[in-house]
């Protein structure tokens, strides 16, 4: 994710949770496999524009110290980073950011954005550490199901969910309002048959969850 942030010059939010952060596990790291993406840097010799309008929405980077004026701006701005209230420029900058969103989505389409466990039975959508609870519950209850776990929530990998459009899925999440289920419906049009929720500050118990899944099926 840090690679994507660096390459596309966007902030990234790594969602985590108490259950994950309080669990310890071992992973094997292969340092030489770590890929480091390089950002698009500006060429010397031309006037530097921090927010240069480009086809892919990415403006080349340059850092101080530099003889060029490099201005970042939290207000709406012109290409040179100076605040603007000009209607045409404002629209162009919105378009540029929107194009960058499309560029990021295009890159994500080439990446693994969804984990799928199993290939038969009813479809279950879940995310985060709840995925592990669900996989354990299926084992505990000897249930056959296909578990879909999006790894990215924004951009939401809707392209990877096309096969499950009519699956009438079960959604399992740690939330009182069913916000993950709502997100799925908003992004894909898929409406869940059942939502299994828990919101007492504790992870799902595999056996209890297995019973709830059986009931939903």
């Amino acid at each position, binding site marked *: 994710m840090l690679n994507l942030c660096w390459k596309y010059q966007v902030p990234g939010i790594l969602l985590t949770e108490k259950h994950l952060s309080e669990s310890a596990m071992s992973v094997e790291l292969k340092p030489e496999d770590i890929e480091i993406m390089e950002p698009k840097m500006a060429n010397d010799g031309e006037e530097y524009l921090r927010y240069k309008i480009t086809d892919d929405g990415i403006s080349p980077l340059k850092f101080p110290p530099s003889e060029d004026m490099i201005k970042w701006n939290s207000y709406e701005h012109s290409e040179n*980073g100076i605040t603007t209230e000009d209607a045409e420029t404002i629209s162009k900058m919105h378009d540029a950011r929107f194009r960058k969103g499309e560029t990021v989505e295009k890159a994500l389409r080439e990446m693994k954005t969804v984990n799928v466990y199993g290939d038969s039975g009813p479809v279950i959508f879940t995310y985060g550490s709840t995925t592990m609870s669900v996989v354990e519950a299926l084992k505990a209850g000897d249930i056959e199901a296909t578990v879909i776990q999006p790894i990215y929530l924004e951009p939401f990998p809707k392209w990877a969910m096309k096969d499950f459009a009519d699956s009438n899925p079960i959604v399992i999440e740690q939330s009182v309002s069913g916000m993950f289920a709502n997100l799925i419906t908003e992004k894909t049009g898929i409406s869940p048959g059942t939502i299994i929720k828990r919101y007492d500050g504790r992870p799902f118990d595999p056996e209890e969850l297995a019973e709830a899944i059986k009931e939903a099926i």
Partner: protein
Amino acid sequence: MMAKELITSAENTWCTGCGNFGILNAVPKAVKKLEEKGVGKDKIVITAGIGCHGKIHDYLALSGLYSIHGRGSAVGQGMKIANPDLKVIAFGGDGDSYGEGIAHMIFAAKRNADITVLIHDNGAYSLTTGQASPTSERSFKGPSTPEGSAEDPLNPLALMLISGATFVARGYSAKLDNLVELIVRGVMHEGFSIIDILQPSVVFNDAYDEYNEKTEIIESPAESVDEAIKLTRERERLPIGVLYEKQKEPHHKALLGDFNPVADRFSREKRLKAIREIIGG
């Protein structure tokens, strides 16, 4: 280099007679003097919060980041830690840096972050038509306090002094030469420097007469924090100049020594070696 080369072509929307113009005049002159001292303008980065003061970010042809409300001092600290070779000037307003951003100011002072904070202190939220700010006088009338403010003003410089600031000054936007000198000294000071600049808002808090009458340039700083605090409490006259200065190791030196995360950036090989050492591979 001419000072006017440091002004962009952005349209200036401050009110005619606004004290902010004094600060806008002072900074290019200070930058010129800093160049004579070997600090090139390429090494100077600026940042600002939100308010009328923040517009100076658009008007000065210097690199930087126009940040969000009260966060100029936080962003400035980040710039310094990222590349300690840079000289950082963080512009702020009294509403911005003494209100929402006050915690960043206290901690920047506490850790002696080597940045220079210039506060455009006009005692009102003038960009949003003059609401009472943290430094508004008691009884100040504005859209949010139509019957007059029921609160006493904050003494920001006393707060900075007890928080650990190592360079504390007060300037006046209409005393240009003095202000230029304060900015140069603040930037050259190694550690946290704050200059509270009295800056009349002609429309919402026109204090020119009072400041012209009461401001008085002091020749040398106080000997101690306690003495400096006394200077900040004076009401009959308003002492202008460096109120307190002390040498102390700046935050980036305590944290990084002479290491510069940009100039001394680790190669991929060095990073991988460090990771291998941690995982024992």
